[in-house]
């Protein structure tokens, strides 16, 4: 209840920090109180990610918003590798690689364990003009050679993933293998452990850099097309604009398509009873294995699994986002649904021809409503460019967040097993309580112990430290963050902020005015058309997905495309964060699920069991009836 007002070493004081003024400003980041029991949380994170007395003036003058889209929960110390990656990798693109004339990098701070971010702007007109020249040369080169560069990008990404696959971790051997001696290696298992970890971290930063190589440019081309449409057809919905551009064969649909094929094969091989009769995936696989034709199905299953089941159940940014391959319940839920559909005589294929024909019709019809030939020419050029960049925009997500990052987290767990084997930790999951740089130290500590035969310091050092951090993090998790801090900006120009986080002038105003449900109504971005009424089902952890009942309305921080198997049971979806191009908006539309995203407060103001109405046409969510007693 009470919180520390005293300034301890390196922790700035909250004395005198500005409080929130409705309609005018958000609370100063320095006014945020540490919840009781979470004192010392700063020690879990690197010094440069924390607020400080020395940078107070700068930090107090900026607008900070909570990045719940990528990091809904307090960061695990190890998981800051992802946020620290894009702090550099996304920012450097707009500042040093091709200076986006009016936009700078995106700054980060960790406050009470939650990630807040703040886009920098360039306002000096002379500097903007200078940057525009460099930008035109550099970005122009990418647009002019887009397809070729994208092809190279896929090759680089695939190669990076192959090298990640090859990295392995094993406990240090009792005795160095004889081969090391006979082959005169000169370096041994201790060195290999250390360098493998180095390779793992470098590999993440390599993919992290590829992530943003083309992304901002892709978004920029799309954003320009979107603005053209909004000017020509005032009020046109975002999903309609997206539908003119988005692809039908994007990789995010591939995992689900693979499950459809497996369902078809199960019907052909007459394995349907085994699939439908076993809710537990392991039991189903065992039963299929025992069937005379089972081997053929299992071979197809293994083929599909790698890489298509490297499909994260979250945004892929945190280690808790497990992939289908780690937990087969989601793909098996989908599999049972498709098998049942086939037995009932349904056509379970996605209507690709219809979707494509509709895209052609919609685009051609809007074109006819443009006023002049010059406008039709611009429209043609912009829609073509937007379609050209879109395969990267949509597919990078599978390569980076799903395939690479899911694999990365599984490699980190492999290393966790090494620490467990050497007595540093009780559980492989505990290693996420260490920052990546602390792991370097811990590995060296482990090598010392192995080399000298003295018990490593880590054996007695880390367990209590992990316990302390776990307690702190649990307290932080129980104290949800406010959506924004600091001085609201006059303008939001940074394209990523608008497109990815859905943060606009309007949403900032909304946050300024309210701190929860306004009456019984929440407003967000209309992300997928349609209207539905149902019981709210709050999902904070993907584990809760298995509680979903038919007709429920999903209420979450953000949805992940890999949740699709439960989508068929839902009647609508509502999220706290996300813009029109957020990873899942596209998939939500594809599944025809009414969706309102970027409401800010859905998970904190709607309770599971309340009867709610979601209007995906207008972006309004209403609570109709409280939880029945």
């Amino acid at each position, binding site marked *: 209840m009470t919180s520390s007002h005293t300034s301890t070493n390196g922790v700035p004081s909250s004395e005198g920090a500005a409080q929130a003024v409705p309609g005018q400003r958000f609370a100063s980041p320095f006014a945020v109180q540490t919840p009781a029991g979470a004192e010392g949380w700063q020690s879990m994170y690197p010094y440069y990610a924390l607020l400080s007395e020395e940078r107070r003036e700068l930090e107090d003058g900026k607008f900070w918003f909570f990045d719940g889209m990528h990091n809904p929960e307090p960061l695990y110390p190890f998981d800051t590798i992802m946020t620290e990656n894009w702090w550099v990798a996304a920012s450097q693109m707009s500042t040093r690689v091709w200076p986006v*004339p009016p936009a700078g990098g995106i700054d980060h701070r960790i406050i009470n364990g939650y990630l807040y971010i703040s886009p920098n702007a360039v306002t000096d007109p002379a500097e903007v003009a200078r940057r525009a020249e460099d930008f035109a040369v550099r970005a122009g080169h990418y647009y002019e050679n887009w397809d070729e560069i994208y092809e190279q990008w896929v090759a680089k990404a695939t190669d990076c993933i192959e090298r990640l696959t090859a990295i392995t971790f094993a406990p240090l051997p009792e005795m160095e293998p004889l081969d090391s001696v006979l082959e005169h290696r000169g370096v041994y298992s201790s060195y290999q452990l250390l360098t493998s970890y180095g390779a793992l971290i470098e590999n993440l930063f390599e993919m992290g850099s590829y992530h943003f190589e083309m992304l901002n440019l892709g978004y920029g081309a799309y954003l320009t097309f979107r603005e*053209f449409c*909004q000017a020509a057809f005032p009020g046109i*919905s975002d999903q*309609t604009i997206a539908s003119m551009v988005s692809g039908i064969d994007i990789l995010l649909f591939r995992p689900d398509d693979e499950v459809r094929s497996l369902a078809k094969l199960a019907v052909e091989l007459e394995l349907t009873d085994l699939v439908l009769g076993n809710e537990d995936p392991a039991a189903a696989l065992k039963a299929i294995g025992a069937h005379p034709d089972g081997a053929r199905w299992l071979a197809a299953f293994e083929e599909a699994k790698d890489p298509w089941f490297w499909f994260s159940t979250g945004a892929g940014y945190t280690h808790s986002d497990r992939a289908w391959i780690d937990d087969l319940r989601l793909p098996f839920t989908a599999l049972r649904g498709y098998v049942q559909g086939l037995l009932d005589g349904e056509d379970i294929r996605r209507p690709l021809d219809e979707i494509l024909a509709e895209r052609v019709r919609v685009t051609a019809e809007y074109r006819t409503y443009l*006023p002049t030939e*010059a406008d039709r020419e611009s429209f043609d050029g912009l829609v073509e460019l937007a379609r050209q960049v879109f395969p990267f925009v949509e597919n990078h997500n599978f390569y980076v967040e799903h395939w690479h990052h899911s694999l990365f987290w599984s490699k980190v767990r492999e290393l966790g097993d090494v620490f467990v084997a050497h007595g540093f930790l009780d559980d492989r999951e505990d290693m996420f309580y260490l920052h990546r740089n602390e792991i370097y130290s811990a590995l060296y500590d482990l090598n010392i112990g192995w080399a000298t035969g003295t018990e490593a310091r880590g054996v007695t050092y880390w367990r209590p430290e992990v316990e302390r951090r776990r307690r702190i993090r649990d307290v932080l998790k129980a104290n949800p963050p406010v959506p924004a801090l600091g001085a609201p900006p006059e303008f939001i120009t940074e394209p990523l902020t608008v497109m990815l986080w859905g943060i606009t002038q309007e949403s900032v105003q909304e946050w300024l005015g309210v701190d929860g449900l306004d009456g019984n109504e929440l407003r967000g971005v209309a992300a997928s058309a349609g209207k539905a009424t149902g019981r709210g089902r709050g999902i904070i952890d993907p584990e809760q997905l298995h509680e979903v009942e038919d007709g429920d309305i999903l209420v979450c921080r953000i949805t992940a495309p890999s949740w699709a198997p439960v989508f068929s049971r839902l009647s609508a979806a509502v999220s706290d964060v996300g813009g029109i191009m957020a990873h899942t908006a596209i998939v939500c539309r594809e599944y025809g699920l009414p969706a309102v995203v970027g409401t800010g407060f859905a998970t904190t103001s709607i309770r599971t069991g309340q009867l709610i109405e979601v209007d995906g046409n207008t972006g309004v969510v209403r609570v109709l009836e409280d939880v029945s007693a």
Partner: protein
Amino acid sequence: MTEPTTSPFVLWIDDPAAVGSRLLGGKFGSLAEMTAGGFAVPGGFGITTTAYRYFLEYAGLADRAREVRAQAVGADLAQVQAISAEFTAAIQAAPLPADLETAILTAYAELERRTGRSRLPVAVRSSGESEDLAGASFAGQYDTFLWVRGADEVLRYVRSCWAGMFGAAVLTYRPDSDLTAATADHGICVGIQQMVEARAAGVMFTLDPVTGDRSKVVIEGCWGLGEGVVSGGVTPSRYVVDKVTFEVLKRDVAHQEAMYSFDPAIAAVGLVPVATDRCDAPCLADDQIHALAELAKRIERHRGAPQDIEWAVSEAGDVHVLQVRPETVWSHRQAEQLVTERKSAVGHVLARFAGVGVASNGGRPS
């Protein structure tokens, strides 16, 4: 029965010969075309411009009619009113030729037979030859009489429509100070059409009348008959619909306490209270909005240009077309270029990154 060589007094709007016939005037001619196009137009017939001219000749008023128009041109308002009053009284008093009266009564009886309802309530409206001429829509200048029942009333209001041709407002209506439109010897058809007992009604445009955006259908409607929307006496609810996807992009539902409807107390159309549970409720359900927008789009395509359409939804939910007219404001305006500058798509995108919007209005949604 039919008179193949002479021009008919009565022309049914579902008669193939009615399509494109000048005898029905603008309004009813369009409805004949809509009927032939398969649109849901309430049944009815027109008492043709031939009938009107025959009546004036028979009553010996034809020459005087031309004089009245010519005199009105130079006159001040008081003089116009005096001329108008005198001549409309003459029309009201003149005898109706027996063959014309028979034709009208036979047609009304046939409409009663077709609908299976005696003393069928009908709308009696003027449909001028001069309507829809460029720059001279005569919008709102001609008469409409609603809920007219029985043969006697029909005859009375037909005559009122003819007299209405010489109302002071019509005689002085010249939006382009073009005298030819005002003085020309335009005839008039009187349309007799089954009343739609509207649950809701109004008008719609196949473009956004405010921005000229052709990708929208804008619907205005209210509870009851649409007269309130047309006359401006009732503030309508407004729906902006995307013409391509049929999404309802904007809805402003108005509070409505009174509506135009048949009032048994006065045996005529008047303002009556709206049921309390409907005052703040939308007058159109989503599927009706969709049906109306789809209808508007089909009519525009059929007619080949943006349209202004009057519609009504019956208590059973059926959608009816009451009137179609070409949209006159944006259709005559020079199209304005949207993009600031002609340049390549990459050029547009690079400029956007540098803070220069692709469109001259900045690309901000209005």
